[in-house]
């Protein structure tokens, strides 16, 4: 069964159509690439999926249940997590706090228990910290746990964004240009990491990426957006040969 179904999704911004009638279907455990030229509407798909924007029309189903009208935090609780193209860490907070905040939906202690420092609260805080540190360890960020997020290097910040997304406990992970600004070696590591993450956490992943090499290497299926329309869909090999894609996207780069 499909974990995610997007049915004729349309988004209009004050007369400007950003997406028109987009259909995407993602099966459980798939690794999907979402590509297209700048302004094609890729990030808009993510913003609609996570409830940051409301769709003009169309439907989004997660595990067969509609997401329309839900607030972003409710969608997170349904199991979608994302990273941001323009990195939105909590800059003035420590790396550890960034991750602990992402565990928010799993916190059980009440506000009163927190204020009164009841035993249950302290236990939960300890567990939370241990879980956060475990995750940071996987991403080689343990040594940076007390640093403010803004003091991390660019690559570290991108990694921390992924850690934070994972901490929310998602089924579906949306990565918005995870390799942007990374050098070839870091990009290579990222490819390994994404594959490993999928196995380790049983994730379904959609990623937006400009680095064609990375997308072709990593993704099993690719959707191509252009001017808010899906112009092609299929395996990397098919996409590479599709004349419409070459025209709209690859052609643009080749010229």
């Amino acid at each position: 069964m499909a974990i995610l179904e997007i049915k004729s999704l349309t988004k209009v911004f004050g007369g400007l159509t950003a997406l028109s009638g987009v259909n995407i279907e993602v099966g459980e455990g798939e690794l999907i690439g979402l590509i297209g030229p700048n302004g094609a509407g890729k990030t808009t798909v993510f913003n609609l999926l996570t409830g940051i924007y409301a769709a003009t029309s169309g439907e989004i189903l997660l595990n067969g249940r509609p997401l329309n009208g839900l607030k972003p935090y409710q969608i997170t609780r349904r199991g979608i997590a994302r990273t941001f193209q323009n990195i939105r860490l909590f800059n003035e907070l420590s790396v550890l706090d960034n991750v602990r905040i992402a565990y928010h939906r799993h916190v059980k202690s009440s506000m009163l228990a927190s204020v009164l420092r009841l035993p249950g609260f302290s236990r939960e805080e300890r567990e939370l910290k241990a879980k956060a540190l475990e995750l940071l360890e996987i991403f080689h960020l343990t040594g940076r746990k007390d640093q403010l997020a803004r003091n991390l290097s660019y690559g570290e910040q991108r990694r921390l964004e992924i850690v934070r997304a994972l901490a929310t406990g998602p089924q579906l992970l949306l990565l918005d240009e995870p390799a942007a600004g990374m050098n070839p070696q870091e990009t290579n590591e990222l490819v390994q990491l994404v594959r490993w993450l999928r196995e380790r956490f049983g994730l379904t992943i959609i990623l937006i990426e400009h680095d064609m090499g990375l997308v072709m290497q990593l993704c099993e299926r690719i959707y191509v957006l252009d001017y808010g329309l899906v112009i092609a869909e299929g395996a990397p090999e098919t996409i590479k040969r599709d004349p419409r894609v070459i025209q709209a996207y690859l052609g643009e780069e080749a010229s």
Partner: protein
Amino acid sequence: MDLLQQLINGLSLGSIYALIALGYTMVYGIVRLINFAHGDVYMVGAYAGFFAVWHYHLSFFPALGVAMMVAAATGVLIERLAYRPLRQAPRIAVLITAIGVSLLLENLGILILKPEPRSFPEVFPLALYNFGGLIVTNRQMAILAVGLVLMVLLQYFVNFTRTGKAMRAVSFDMEAALLMGINVDRIITVTFAVGSALAAAAGVLVGIFYNRIDPLMGIMPGIKAFVAAVLGGIGVIPGAMLGGLVMGVAEVMVVALFSSTWKDAVAFAILIFILLVKPTGLLGRPGGEKV
């Protein structure tokens, strides 16, 4: 007829608010600062006008000119000494500094000018005109006329002069303006000068109309004029004019229909209503965050 009478009274009061609101809105448009000291610059202007008439025996227009120049100098000085050093600082720090400047001006006023209210000398004898039952004083006409002329001049200045156009450019995008070779510091200075001068004009007009000035006279009109600026859409010059007039009329109407003790609440009730329905104000531009 009574309603029309109140409308005239409201428009006079509204012109005052509008003149003060313009300074708030211009400064906010350029440096994104709620200049809390603006109401006190209005007070400084009123006193400058007072001394020009009372001590130097100037007539209305020269006194108005003197008051506007003194206030302009005060405004520019405040910006130089208190705000400019904090241009890179968090905005709340500048806001607190502005509050500090406001308190300083008020307390200097109490110290130097004495806390007692003073009655403004009669610049021209009160005359009443009866237009078929509608009573208008020559002072009200002066307020409306001066307010109107200054607002027209300001519109001309902002839309048709080089400096005015540069001002709009800075308000739209300060960095781009800087890259285009606009001297942003100079534009900020001009903005403070013009805004303060307009407030001074309001101060002198209030002195003439209500015949009474004191060192704390700027607090309430200052807040209300700021509310008027938000009401019209902060940063938008015609918005400040509209907001000021609406506030003036609403306040006079409430006093006429209910009680004067409610008038302060009504100004804020209107404000909150507008903020909740259309947060960018009557004539404001919509803005959103890009994700």
